[in-house]
């Protein structure tokens, strides 16, 4: 019987071409969108985690309230022992100190007079400790345009844009003017070890990256840091596990009303990422629902048209003693076959397009203005296991639903009318 049905489908373009076309378009879009959103969301979340929020972050309560302003006068103290504590208590995460600071970067001429000045966004991370993964997290090596990683204290990386704008070369000295933890003036010289470009406007405008110990001495922050970040060793953000760690940690300071008491926040709690996480989780579902809905309506109608065209065929089959149930079932089987064919075709097309968007990406350039949120300028799709099967859900479901709805007419058909209906 299946063979018989498949022959019918193959020979009757009305039965196959239009539905397969509709399905493969819908499936193509589902697959492409799902890969695209999965890529964009996961890139954004990864970037934010690596550059800004960590999977978990410890700050003082006061710092957390104004975290946007990087208020280092409210920084955590005795961070050495805090990090050691955290490593012990939550060994599933990697804990590391960071200082973010603002300041003025000054470039001197041969006589030592100011040649150029610009605002700098400073990142002090652990570059020198053996086993530190900070350089890898911040993707520094691939971002280096010229030069190399700082290899010793007193060296820095600066943004390539900045270096070009002010004609700073490798080995040149730049002076960072900032404020110490107690609000005093600070300045420190750094030798430019390399220049970097991350492809993220927030960083590329004027970043300076130095080792954490250099920043601690320059800013008078011995054994202090603005933030302690935790990253799961799996590199994957685990929402529920992060919540457990956060709850356990914060419980210890529940009854402490010191505004300098440490406070732990999850990635969700920072930079407005909660909405993005919710959105990223519901996006596939929403899209699939929309496609199922839209395609079902179209396929319902093509099914109704098909039912009209095949009115005599169904009549004969009923007269010949095929049960309505069985006739209906054979329509469903046809729709599964067509749904599968359309899904395979649509998935193949969607995967090809997604692969292109994964490898090449789309450059949104200056259109991306993320504020404090980290956003790349080039967005990419991400092909995962889901990309391969997600299209089959709307593809099959809408075809079967559409055909089932239109096929219900079979049950209303009166056998008593068959002789009359089949005589014209």
């Amino acid at each position, binding site marked *: 019987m299946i063979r018989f049905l498949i022959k019918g489908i193959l020979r009757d373009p009305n039965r196959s071409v239009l539905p397969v076309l509709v399905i493969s378009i819908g499936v193509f879009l589902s697959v492409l969108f799902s890969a695209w959103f999965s890529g964009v969301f996961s890139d954004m979340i990864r970037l934010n985690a690596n550059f800004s929020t960590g999977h978990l972050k410890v700050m003082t309560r006061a710092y957390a309230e104004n975290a946007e302003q990087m208020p280092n006068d409210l920084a955590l103290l005795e961070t050495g022992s805090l990090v050691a504590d955290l490593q012990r208590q939550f060994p599933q995460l990697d804990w590391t100190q960071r200082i973010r600071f603002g300041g003025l970067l000054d470039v001197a001429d041969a006589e030592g007079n100011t040649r150029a000045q610009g605002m700098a966004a400073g990142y002090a991370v652990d570059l020198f400790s053996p086993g530190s993964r900070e350089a890898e997290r911040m993707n520094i090596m691939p971002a280096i345009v010229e030069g190399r990683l700082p290899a010793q204290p007193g060296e820095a990386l600066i943004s390539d844009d900045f270096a070009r704008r002010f004609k700073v070369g490798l080995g040149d000295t730049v002076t960072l003017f900032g404020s110490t933890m107690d609000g005093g003036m600070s300045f420190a010289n750094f030798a430019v070890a390399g220049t970097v470009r991350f492809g993220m406007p927030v960083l590329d405008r004027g970043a300076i990256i130095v080792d954490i110990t250099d920043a601690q001495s320059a800013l008078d922050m011995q054994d202090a840091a603005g933030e302690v970040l935790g990253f799961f060793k799996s590199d994957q953000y685990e929402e529920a596990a992060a919540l457990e760690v956060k709850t356990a940690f914060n419980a210890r300071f529940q009854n402490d009303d010191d505004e300098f008491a440490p406070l732990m926040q999850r990635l969700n709690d920072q930079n407005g990422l909660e909405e993005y996480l919710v959105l990223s989780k519901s996006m596939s579902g929403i899209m699939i629902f929309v496609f199922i809905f839209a395609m079902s309506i179209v396929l319902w109608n093509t099914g109704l048209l098909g039912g009209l065209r095949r009115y005599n065929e169904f009549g004969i089959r009923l007269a*010949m003693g095929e049960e309505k149930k069985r006739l209906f079932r054979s329509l469903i089987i046809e729709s599964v076959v067509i749904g599968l064919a359309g899904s395979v075709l649509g998935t193949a097309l969607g995967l090809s397009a997604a692969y292109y968007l994964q490898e090449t990406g789309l450059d949104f350039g200056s259109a991306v203005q993320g504020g404090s949120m980290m956003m790349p300028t080039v967005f990419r799709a991400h092909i995962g296991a889901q990309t391969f099967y997600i299209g089959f859900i709307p593809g099959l479901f809408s075809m079967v639903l559409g055909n089932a709805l239109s096929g219900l007419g079979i049950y209303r058909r009166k056998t008593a009318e068959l002789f009359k209906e089949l*005589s014209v």
Partner: protein
Amino acid sequence: METIIQIHQLSKRFPVGNGEFTALNEVNLTFDKGEFTGLVGPSGSGKTTLLNIIGSLDAPSSGEVTVLGQSIAHLTHAQSAQLRNRHLGFIFQTYNLFPVYTVFENVEFALLLQHLPAAERRKAVMEALEWVGLTDKAQSRPAQLSGGESQRVAIARAMVKKPAIVLADEPTANLDSKNSHHILQTMLRLNQELQTTFLFATHDEKVMSYLRRIISLEDGRVVKDERIAAHSFIKSNS
């Protein structure tokens, strides 16, 4: 003779407007195995309605109709489908072949419903096509056939499962004289070779000339029921 259809006090009423229209009125008939019988009468006399009920496509309003020992009024949908599938063949005024399937596949369909194995199906289909003289058209599509050939395929489709009864409503209405005679001779031969009971509803004089029994209906009543001895005419033609 073995009785295969028994009709006792059959009435069929259709609701029309506020009242009812009586399409069949206290009909009493019996049919034996191997009959070649026609229902004749003016338009609206109830011929199709009677075929519908015998074919278990419709139910009686009152009275008793027994086909092959089964009471039509008491069959479930599944049981009446089963009765049609196994024991009844239908031939319509228009041929109603499945356009995307070959002649072979059109005839084979009835056997697919019976879950017969492929080899048996093939044998039965080729035999049925031989009965109607269309073995050479097995792989043709309906669109490539003439009207007469199409109706012969429809006969093969009805006959392939060797049903006890074939019901045909105006089978010659769309055919010219030559093709009408051809398919009537085919059916008469099958009637004689396989002892299949044929029951026609017809206006066609050509059909009547082949019939062995003519039942005349008028306003839903049987007004005449005559049996005719074998025609010399047919013998000379077959």
